[in-house]
């Protein structure tokens, strides 16, 4: 083989290696996001982190769950609901204080004192039943903020009364996990999703904003559009996610505190974008239950995206992000 042929052969090899290396780099995942999934707070939680590859929130969320669950036998809320009094830890005092405030502030559309009702129906569990009207009316007599007194970390409930913090616990967990993220300099961005409650933290990799798909309530496979959002909390209430079918009828897990029956909302879904997860959770429930009459409860620094039954998407003018409609069967109304 002549020198010239050797040189040509090496040149060909070099060309192939350079191009292969270029395409290898090109084919790599551009983001450093790492996702973890675990079961907590009676649902699946997915945490996606940018900047670090180890899950840091699940153990904390499980600790919160152990304190706040209405049915966990070692929880502080379980003790309150069964014994009528309890000594609360700092986190439980914080969420109970918020939950009772939101109950008082939302004209009865969100109610954290519905434990006598939720424990009667047991919607979403294998023990779900349709109670009699008499049972519901009797249970409604034990609902209301006035049945509870909280003095620093000591709480007392009247007989047969109890708290169900399921309407704010996931949002509260998002609030607390955000504090953990803020204390960890390695985390440049994160998405913590309980499904109905989501924390968008910092920035995603290689983008200035988070891209969030707005699910079609009629078909989970389809998107209605894309939300572009910066750091915030996103809470959604919809009767289609957790329910029970009893005697051929579907019952939502969201209750109307004024009647004690599962809510039959005028909306398909209500999404609140806020700067507090617990508040966002309470507001999304309140507006889902109260419908248009409850829109006035939403403060100026929060915004809503509501999907109604007439294929209209209502977005408040205060919405801090951008929305791009992809399903042209729907109409967007800014109000």
């Amino acid at each position, binding site marked *: 083989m002549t020198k*010239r042929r050797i040189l040509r052969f090496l040149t060909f090899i070099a060309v192939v290696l350079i*191009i292969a290396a270029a*395409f290898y780099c090109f084919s790599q995942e551009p983001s450093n996001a790492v*996702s973890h999934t675990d079961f907590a707070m009676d649902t699946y939680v997915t945490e996606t982190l940018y900047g670090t590859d180890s899950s840091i929130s699940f153990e904390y969320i499980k600790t919160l769950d152990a304190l706040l669950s209405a049915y966990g036998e070692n929880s502080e809320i379980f003790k309150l609901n069964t014994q009528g009094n309890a000594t609360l830890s700092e986190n439980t005092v914080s969420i109970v204080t918020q939950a009772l405030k939101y109950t008082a502030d939302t004209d009865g559309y969100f109610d954290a004192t519905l434990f006598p009702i939720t424990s009667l129906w047991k919607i979403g569990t294998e023990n779900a039943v349709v109670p009699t009207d008499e049972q519901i009316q009797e249970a409604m007599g034990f609902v209301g903020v006035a049945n509870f007194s909280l003095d620093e970390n000591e709480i007392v409930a009247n007989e047969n009364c109890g708290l169900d913090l399921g309407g704010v616990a996931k949002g509260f967990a998002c609030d607390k996990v955000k504090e953990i993220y803020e204390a960890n300099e390695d985390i440049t961005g994160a998405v913590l999703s309980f499904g109905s409650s989501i924390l968008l933290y910092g920035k995603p990799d290689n983008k200035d904003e988070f891209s*969030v*798909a707005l699910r079609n309530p009629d078909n*989970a496979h389809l998107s209605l559009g894309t939300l572009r959002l910066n750091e915030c909390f996103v809470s959604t209430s919809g009767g289609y996610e957790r329910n029970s079918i009893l005697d051929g009828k579907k019952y939502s897990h969201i209750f109307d505190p004024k009647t004690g029956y599962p809510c039959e909302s005028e909306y398909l879904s209500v999404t609140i974008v806020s700067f507090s997860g617990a508040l966002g959770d309470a507001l999304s429930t309140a507006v889902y239950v109260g419908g248009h009459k409850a829109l006035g409860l939403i403060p100026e620094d929060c915004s809503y995206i509501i999907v109604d039954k007439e294929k209209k998407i209502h977005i408040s003018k205060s919405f801090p992000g951008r929305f791009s409609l992809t399903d042209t069967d729907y109409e967007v109304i800014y109000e």
Partner: protein
Amino acid sequence: MNRKLFCGSDFVIIACIILASVVLGVFMRGSDSADIAQIYKGSELIASVSLNENSEFTVEGADGFVFCVENNSICVKTSPCENKICVNTGCISRGNETIVCLPERICVRTSVNDGFDAVVG
């Protein structure tokens, strides 16, 4: 001494190599896609499947469930639970989207590079 290192046919060969590399690179990029679905029982990951190949399958640890991958999406076709919320959820295909069966504590999560960071609603 004045003979050139490359003649005309060499440039044709180099062009062919570049073209073949591009095709190979695109093919590798497609086949190495991270579009997968992970199936959890409680906290335990019990299966991880590609969304690029249509299939219908069962998973050890998810008794009574039948899963179906079709057109880069996944759904729960059969479930032993009563309320069938997981079946009625339909197919999912976007990044970090989930199908959840709470009674049986089964979760299907997609990991798809479609630009979405989360799904709400």
